[in-house]
């Protein structure tokens, strides 16, 4: 018996007195024990209060050219204890990988090692300026070079573009490089093929680079339909953007044929590396015929997601695309490592700069610490355990939830909403009920190729006991759904700082910032 069921059975509701059950959930304050209501900082400030003690400037004659800012800015005045308490309370309203299983498919919410945080904060990395003379930063260049070496070895591809700020930025880098390579061949192609199951960033990227997006349907096995793909491939296609393993959690088993077909058409094979965690150390993308792939350091290589960033999206490039890699380049020169910041020499054909400075150094340090900790043996184990955990959940759950595609999955397992048929409960309701049980939901309604998708990615950093418990909760929820306990699902979540939020109202009349109450309303109070 797992813990949750014991806790639930410790004191069944029917044993409790009627009076106790009648006690309303409301409290005087709106607080609920450890869940504290917290106003905005703008509603807590006082003029004249400050959370930082700074010296007075020595007397001087300002040289702002008469452009001094006039009047108050409107920022609240808070002391340090108020600020600490405010943000601590806010933090307590968040779910996080530190507090529990975070099974968001395609997001790879794995443990974030704290050694990596410590190392990224060393003054030798955090307190160096991107424009310092090269002679003062040899260690930084060595770290980037070492990271590049690991990424090249793991992908089997000969070049790495390090500057992209996140996965979508890496996609932009890849598709721009592909367009530059085609233009160098004197070709102007107009279409990029994107499977239906792709992340939204793929078509958005292709469109941003001036391409028409041509959607490729899947086959009944959840993979790209090779026959249809071949009919679409012609000399007008610049690239195929494929995620592998794909967003159904499946390895594209005809990938070598896909690559051959793409290359026969003179197009490039771009791979979205969001799901690299499934194969790292076991399969090299170069061996699959991939020309270009971005790596989300904030997924496979454990840099923290930080509530939505920062990320880092280095791009591995085949020799055919390497000349077009964005600036800066890090090259081995006669005097050691050298940053190439201009289109000259071998970098003459570089697509230019994609971002200020040299890339997400703070993420590079974390990712390298992660890779060195695991080693060649450990990263392979990562992929194996990630796949093992997902398949374990698959077999634990396939008789309760509806598995979209039979057979082994990779690092994530896709279910759809057939199991909720005629229950009056939707995927959204089911996910929200999971929140009440103390779990972050899986990815919902993505990929778009199945109805009411529930995409579960446990990652390798979950224990078997954690998976057993999670599977047990899901099974119990399915049983509740089948027994007609609709109210539980429609009302969920009930135990969170906020219940379901009105997203329609938020979009209809957007309130995107705090504003002070108008004077007349204040006077009425």
């Amino acid at each position: 018996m797992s813990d949750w069921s014991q806790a639930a059975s410790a004191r069944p509701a029917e044993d409790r007195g009627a009076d106790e059950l009648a006690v309303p959930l409301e409290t005087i304050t709106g607080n609920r024990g450890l869940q504290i209501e917290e106003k905005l900082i703008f509603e807590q400030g006082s003029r004249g209060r400050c959370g930082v003690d700074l010296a007075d400037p020595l007397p001087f004659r300002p040289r702002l050219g008469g452009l001094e800012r006039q009047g108050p800015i409107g920022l609240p005045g808070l002391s340090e204890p108020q600020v600490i308490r405010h943000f601590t309370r806010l933090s307590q309203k968040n779910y996080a990988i530190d507090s529990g299983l975070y099974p968001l498919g395609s997001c790879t919410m794995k443990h974030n090692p704290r050694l990596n945080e410590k190392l990224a904060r060393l003054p030798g990395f955090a307190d160096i300026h991107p424009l310092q003379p090269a002679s003062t930063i040899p260690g930084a260049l060595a770290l980037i070079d070492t990271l590049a070496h690991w990424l090249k070895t793991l992908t089997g591809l000969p070049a790495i573009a390090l500057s992209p700020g996140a996965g979508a930025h890496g996609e932009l880098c890849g598709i721009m490089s592909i367009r530059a390579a085609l233009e160098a061949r004197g070709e102007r192609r107009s279409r990029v093929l994107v499977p239906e199951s792709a992340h939204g960033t793929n078509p958005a990227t292709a469109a941003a680079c001036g391409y028409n997006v041509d959607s490729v349907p899947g086959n009944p096995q959840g993979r790209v339909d090779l026959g249809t793909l071949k009919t679409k491939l012609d000399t007008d296609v610049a690239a195929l953007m494929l995620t592998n393993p794909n967003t159904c959690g499946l390895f594209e088993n005809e990938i070598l044929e896909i690559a051959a077909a793409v290359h026969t058409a003179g197009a490039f094979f771009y791979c979205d590396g969001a799901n690299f965690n499934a194969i790292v150390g076991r399969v090299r993308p170069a061996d699959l015929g991939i020309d270009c792939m971005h790596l989300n350091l904030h997924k496979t290589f454990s840099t923290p997601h930080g509530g939505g960033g920062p990320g880092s999206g280095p791009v591995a490039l085949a020799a055919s695309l390497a000349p077009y890699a964005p600036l800066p380049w890090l090259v081995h020169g006669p005097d050691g490592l050298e940053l190439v910041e201009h289109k000259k020499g071998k970098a003459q054909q570089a697509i230019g700069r994609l971002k200020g400075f040299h890339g997400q150094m703070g993420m590079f340090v974390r990712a390298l610490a992660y890779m060195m900790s695991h080693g060649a043996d450990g990263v392979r184990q990562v992929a194996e355990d990630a796949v093992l955990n997902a398949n374990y959940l698959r077999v634990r759950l396939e008789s309760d939830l509806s598995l979209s595609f039979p057979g082994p999955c990779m690092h994530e397992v896709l279910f759809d909403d057939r199991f909720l048929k005629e229950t009056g409960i939707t995927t959204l309701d089911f996910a929200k009920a999971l929140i009440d049980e103390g779990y972050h939901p899986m990815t919902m309604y993505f990929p778009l190729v199945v109805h009411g998708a529930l995409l579960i990615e446990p990652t390798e950093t979950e224990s078997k006991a954690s998976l057993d418990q999670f599977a047990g909760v899901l099974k119990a929820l399915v049983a509740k759904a089948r027994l007609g306990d609709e109210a539980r699902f429609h009302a969920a979540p009930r135990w969170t700082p906020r219940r379901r939020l009105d997203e329609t109202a938020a979009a209809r009349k957007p309130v995107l910032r705090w504003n002070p109450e108008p004077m007349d309303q204040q006077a009425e109070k």
Partner: protein
Amino acid sequence: MRYLPLTDRDRGEMLEAIGVDSIDALFADVPPAARLDGLVDLPRAMGEIEVERAISGMAARNVAAGSVPFFIGGGAYRHHIPAAVDHLIQRGEFLTSYTPYQPEVSQGTLQYLFEFQTQVALLTAMAVANASLYDGATACAEAVMMANRLTRRRKAVLSGGLHPHYREVCETYARFVGFELAALDPAPGGAEDLGKRVGRDTSCVVVQNPDFFGEIRDYSDLARNCHDVGALLVVVVTEVLSLGAIIPPGEMGADIVAAEGQSLGNALNFGGPHLGLFASRDKFVRQMPGRLAGQTVDADGRRGWVLTLSTREQHIRREKATSNICTNSGLCALAFTIHLALLGDAGLTRLAHLNHAAAVALAERLECIRGVRLVNRAFFNEFTLRLPRPAAAVVETLAEEGVLAGIPVSRFYPNRPELEDVLVVAATEMVTAEDMDRLEMELREALS
């Protein structure tokens, strides 16, 4: 391996439950020709001690800004970060959470993003701000593309005072996204007549304030020139702290502001991660790139926050999205929000004055050195000097003496001999009187 909870016994039991003999069976879809039988050619796993030793060794080979007299700016500034900032952003509930797509369990992130957006709007004096972009340079390119969409024109004029990396990022986007740029030549301290360059086919004019050479200008007239012909004014700010001292872009008539927010709460980090700030007029919000947090109510009528106007974004709109951006700079935005919450109006203003005071004091000392000329009329915490010899060599010489003196502009413009003698120098609240003594002494020596 310390990060992997499964034991060999677990693995065995799980494989049995799955009904396969070995892990290889789960990789059966991988074509045999592409399977790696052995390990890749990389070192084996290392313990925490060994990893720390190896990576600390690399860090130790760099000259940390805090260990020397330090005067480099150019879009990344060394400021003091209160201890509370790093403590709070390392709380696991912030650090290890995902994008707040499930608002009921992400109210912490959503509320600070709402506070962040408000702070950015107040600082820039704009109506709305988004929840961040990668950095100032990409925010600048996004601003130009947004102006192109809003005006249905495709030609932007870039000031020569725009940070060269920002200009280069715009050039890359222009080539592949398909729009035109007219970039003016850099002219340290000089005036450009941007008003003359604005026409009926101009989508926007992009200026930076203070500009790359530190000069502060009033762009109110330029804003009027732009609006007269239906063009927009984009104002770039690479030193966000300057907004504590000088007239904000919104009061000069800016339509879009793209800025770098690193100065507040975020370390130099060798240039990344940094923090793209993005603000605009209210009526343009549906063409904004990136995420937006918005206020709403929950099922019980209580105030709460959600990500909103998502129909602009790639995960809903796919190829019709306003931008392909997904992951942004969430945690850097949190650091910014906390630092600015600590400062408030009073602290920000004082910090800005400390910076300006340091820069004025330093500029007035350095311009007394024979052959050195200060080119700025008005500046905040960064200014430009003309030296009597090539600045790059001088900077190298001073670095050898343990002083990081500033940025030789030739690093960005190697083919412009007229900029060879130009040095951009920054002074923040971190600079001490002794640091200034050292710089003045070493510069005198190097130029003698």
